[in-house]
C-alpha cells in the first residue's frame, strides 16, 4: 500500500478508552457509516498504566494490569457490538490494544494509525478546562495538530 495515499482508504481507527467520550465517538461513527460497505474499523486502546512508582510493590502493579485488561476487553467488545447492531460485518471490525510507549498517548495513536495504514482517526473529545489542557495536555488536540496523511474526526 502506498502510505502517502491511504488517507483516501476506508480503514478507520477509533481510539478508545473506558470513558463516555469514547462511547459517544463509537456510537457516532457507527451511525454515520451505517449502510455503507467496504469500511474496516479498528478499535484501538492505548494502555496507559500508572508509573511503577505509583504502586508500592510489583504484585499491586500486576493486579492493576489484570483488572484493567479485563475492563478494557469488556469495553472493546461492547464497542464492537454497537457496530454489529448497526449492521456491520464482524469480520470488518478489529480490536487492538497496545501499551503506551513514549511520552505521549496521542503519538502512540498516530503511530498505530500509520502502522495499520488507516486513512481516518476518530477520537472523542475530553471535557477539559483550558487549565487542565494546559497542565496535562489533550489527546484530541495533539492528534489534530500532529496528524499527517490522514483525516481526523473529533467527536464532542
Amino acid at each position, binding site marked *: 500500500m502506498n502510505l502517502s495515499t491511504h488517507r483516501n482508504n476506508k480503514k478507520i481507527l477509533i481510539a478508545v478508552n473506558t470513558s463516555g467520550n469514547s462511547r459517544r465517538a463509537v456510537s457516532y461513527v457507527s451511525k454515520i457509516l451505517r449502510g455503507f460497505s467496504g469500511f474496516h474499523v479498528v478499535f484501538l486502546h492505548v494502555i496507559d498504566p500508572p508509573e511503577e512508582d505509583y504502586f508500592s510493590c510489583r504484585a499491586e502493579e500486576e493486579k492493576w494490569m489484570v483488572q484493567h485488561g479485563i475492563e478494557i476487553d469488556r469495553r472493546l467488545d461492547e464497542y464492537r457490538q454497537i457496530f454489529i447492531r448497526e449492521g456491520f460485518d464482524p469480520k470488518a471490525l478489529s480490536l487492538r490494544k497496545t501499551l503506551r510507549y513514549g*511520552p505521549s*498517548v496521542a503519538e502512540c495513536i498516530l503511530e498505530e494509525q500509520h502502522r495499520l495504514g488507516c486513512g481516518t482517526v476518530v477520537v472523542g473529545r475530553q471535557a477539559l478546562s483550558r*487549565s487542565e489542557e*494546559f*497542565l*496535562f495536555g489533550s489527546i484530541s488536540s495533539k492528534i489534530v495538530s500532529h496528524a499527517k496523511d490522514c483525516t481526523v474526526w473529533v467527536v464532542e
Partner: protein
Amino acid sequence: MKTMPNQTSVRCMIQRWFPNYPNARVVEIHTDTTDFFRVGYDDVVVLGERAYFIRHNAKEGRFGLDDEEKFWVKRAFDLADGSRKIIKLVFHERFSSRIGDIEFECFRSPRKEARILELVGDHKNFMSGYAIPDEKGNIVRVLDFIYGKPLSILIEDIQSNHETYFHSEFPAILERFVGCIRAIRFLHEHEEKHGDIRRDHIIVDRENEHYRWIDYDFNYRQRENIFSYDLFGLGNILIFLVGKGDVLLSNLRREKHPALHRIRADDVNIVFHNRVADLRKIYSYIPENLNRILLHFSRGANWFYESTDQLLEDIETYRNSVEKIESRLKSDTTGPEENPPKIRLKERFADESIDPS
C-alpha cells in the same frame, strides 16, 4: 565499617563530632527504617557501611500549610566525616492535590528520586546524593545538604525597587535560572520529570551561587503530556522572577494601582487567576519579547510550550536582543555621566514596544 556498629563504637563516632553527647545515653540504632516514626532525634541509622546521626524532622510549607513536619525526612550528620545530610525514608503516600481549580492524584516516589539522583550525579543544578536500600529493602535517599536559601527568599530579600532590580539584578538571575531550565531539559531528555517545580525547590548554593533543584520524589498520574506540568512550574518561576515576586490582583486593588484598569481576564495566570502574567501592563519597561514568553502561561494563551527547548529558544532570543542593544549602547560615544546606559536602554525598548493599551 564491615561489622555492625555497636553502642560503644557508635557513641565514639558521635562524640567525635558532638563532644558534649552524654556517655551513658543508649543509642537507638536502626537498620530497618520501615516505620519512620520510630526513627527519632539522637538515633543512628546505619545504611550499608555508613552511620548517620539523626536530628530534627524536616519541615516544609505546601499548599497553604506552613511548616508542615515531614516525619519521613530527617536531618542528619554523616558520622564518618561530620557532613550534614538529609535522609529521606520511604513513605508511599498517595493523595489528592489541588492546583487552582484542578484536582489530580499525586504520590510520593522513592524510586523516582533514586533514579534521578543516579542520573544527575554531581550536576551543578541539582542536589546530589545517593540511594541505598536498608535491611528491609526500603529505598533510603541520602542527600548532601545544600547551604543556602530558596530562590523565593532570595528574591523577596531584594530591597531595590522593581525597575532597578529589573535592569541591575534580573539579568544575572535569569542567566542562572536558564541553567535550571536546561537542567529540567536534561531530565526530560532522559524521560524523567521533576514533578514538583516550585520557586522554593531551587536552593541558591551559598558556596558557588549555583541554583540547584531539590525534591524529586513528588509524582502524579500523568496524562497526555508528561512534561507540561514541569513546564507550567518553570513558567510560574519565570513570571515570579520577572515580577520580583508575585503580582497579585488583590494587592493591585488594595494599592489602587494605576495599571489596574488595563488588566483583563486573559492577562492573569492560566491556573492561578489571582496572579498577573502580563507584567508589561504593570512594568512598561519589560520588553515585549520577554513579556510574550510570560503570556504563554496566561489565561489568554492560545498556544502552550510543549517542551523546554521551545521555552529556552524564546528566552535566548530575548537575551540576545538585550545583548545587542547593550553592545550598541557601549559603542556610542556619549559619556556615561550625561546619558546613563539604564535610561537609554529604557528608551530603546520604548521605541520597539507596542502600546499595551
